[in-house]
């Protein structure tokens, strides 16, 4: 049973869903980690990326590349709509606006009136044909004991490839004078202004960039599941992405990657343990198969609390930096 659990956990930890979440967290790292922007609606950008592909391909019969572009442009527009009224105000305004916007987007997509375009509550499918047609992996079983399919390999290659690409992009940006301005805004906006920096413009760039990365995470998510449904884009997705970011280490280069892999390893490991134990009759009904999801989340919550108490800087954060008071 032990190895079975381990294999389940590793499969998920390196899987495409973890990659999609890593992308959400990379985007949040840009917003929250480096710029100090409180975006509590990252799932909204994810939704836009996912539906951008799904609607373009499934509803309008467009090609995949166009769908990705639509998703990215949608994220840019969403960032502008969210940012223009709020980025001049205090940080909490953006937080409230983003969380509301993400929920509004979800309701709009599941609304029966938008069914002809979004598929309503049933969502959309059959938009990922182009994606799998590009798969260079021949049929077979991959990575030995993990036994991954050719499609899974292709999803992982694209997903993690994008994660590394955007991680590299942020790394390059953050060590440039551009990144220096971004970090100064996180520390004290007025100081940045007093030195002639157009704070609003840089916050906007950050919001757009992180949002676009989140949208690409959404596209990866949709192409992996090969279906989109409005109710996968619940507010808790954003909070998982935040948990991943904080777990790995906020404002660190590889924090989102480490966080995503660790987070999904723990979730899948716990789920597998609970399911297998309950199947073997080792658990009281209270933890039974019905409650696996809830029990897992409880454990994750507990783990996060312990992390905050004993390692608030995350796995890769800098403890000294953490202890400096801001402002």
């Amino acid at each position, binding site marked *: 049973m032990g190895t079975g659990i381990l294999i389940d956990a590793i499969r998920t930890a390196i899987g495409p869903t973890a990659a999609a979440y890593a992308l959400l967290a990379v985007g949040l790292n840009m917003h929250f980690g480096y710029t100090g922007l409180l975006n509590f609606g990252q799932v909204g950008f994810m939704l836009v990326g996912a539906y951008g592909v799904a609607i373009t391909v499934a509803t309008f019969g467009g090609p995949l590349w166009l769908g990705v572009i639509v998703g990215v442009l949608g994220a840019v527009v969403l960032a502008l709509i969210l940012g223009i009224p709020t980025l001049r105000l205090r940080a909490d305004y953006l937080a409230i606006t983003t969380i509301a916007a993400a929920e509004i987007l979800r309701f709009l997509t599941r609304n029966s009136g938008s069914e002809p375009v979004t598929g309503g509550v049933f969502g959309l499918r059959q938009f990922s044909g182009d994606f799998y047609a590009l798969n260079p992996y021949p049929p077979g079983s991959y990575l030995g004991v993990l036994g991954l399919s050719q499609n899974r390999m292709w999803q992982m290659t694209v997903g993690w490839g994008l994660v590394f690409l955007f991680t590299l992009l942020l790394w390059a940006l953050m060590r440039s004078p551009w990144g220096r301005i971004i970090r100064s805004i996180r520390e004290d906006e007025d100081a940045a202004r007093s030195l*002639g920096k157009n704070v609003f413009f840089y916050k906007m760039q950050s919001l757009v960039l992180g949002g676009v990365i989140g949208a690409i995470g959404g596209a990866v998510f949709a192409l992996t599941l090969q279906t989109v449904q409005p109710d996968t884009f619940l507010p808790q997705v954003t909070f998982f992405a935040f948990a991943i970011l904080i777990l790995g280490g906020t404002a660190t280069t590889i924090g989102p990657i480490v966080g995503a892999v660790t987070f999904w390893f723990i979730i899948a490991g716990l789920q597998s343990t609970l399911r297998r134990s309950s199947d073997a009759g080792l658990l009281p009904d209270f933890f039974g198969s019905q409650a696996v999801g809830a029990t897992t989340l409880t454990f994750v919550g507990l783990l996060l609390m312990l992390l905050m108490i004993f390692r608030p800087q995350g796995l890769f954060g800098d403890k000294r930096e953490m202890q400096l008071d801001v*402002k």
Partner: protein
Amino acid sequence: MSSDAPAPTGPLADVAPEPGVAKPDPILVIDGVKRSFGGITAVNVDHLEIQRGMITGLIGPNGAGKTTLFNLMTGFDTPDQGSWSFNDRSMSGVPSYKAARLGMVRTFQLTKALSRMTVLENMQLGAVGQSGEHFLAALIPPLWRKQEEEITRRADELLARFKMDHMRDDHAGTLSGGQRKLLEMARALMVEPELVMLDEPMAGVNPALTQSLLGHVKGLRDDEGRTVVFVEHDMDVVFDISDWVVCMAEGAIIAEGPPSVIGSNPAVVEAYLGATHGQAPERRKKRAGGEPA
């Protein structure tokens, strides 16, 4: 220069010591600027001119409106009415970052050190017109590396001048209050402003260092031709380095003139003695120290 001598010389020698008096070559001209917070009129300046290339001391009891005036001039706050111009350019509605780029840079009474950035990074940030500040150029280091080296050299020079070079790579959040004041002043100079507005730059700085800081401030005027306006509660400091002193009380300019006459101005004496927290503008041995909230 003859700044140590109390008797005015140079371009301000013939200027009458009256509130709102015209100066021969003003860099900053303020007209009818008013700002109230609820019932309090924080600033109510009829007319004020700041002479170019001089050090102007701005004094006044706590709550006189000095910081608010700085905020208004530099775009960090908006007046209810009035206008002001910098280098003959109207500054109404100009956002704070543009005011800084135009050459008017201020420091804050409550320091704003960028805690989780190093002292050097704080300094580097101050340089304007960096090509690596553009999104795409940022991704191509060869486009900005040379400029970055030049900025770093300038930053190191300034840090050495402010005796902070040994802290170059420390996080600014680890600095003491006085060190933060120094860093903020040095950082403002990285912008290479024409007009430097310092809000209590000496508060909390130890007396030995104050002397050398005063030297730097004079150097800004004498060697670099910059204009300085500074707020200070320590009258020794004010009389020591100012070419001209402006006194505010309850938002208005109640007196201005060369340091030699301002101390005995009855309006100034009354403002200080009448105010509950004021310090009489006579030379005192005790330093003002600390940072009023």
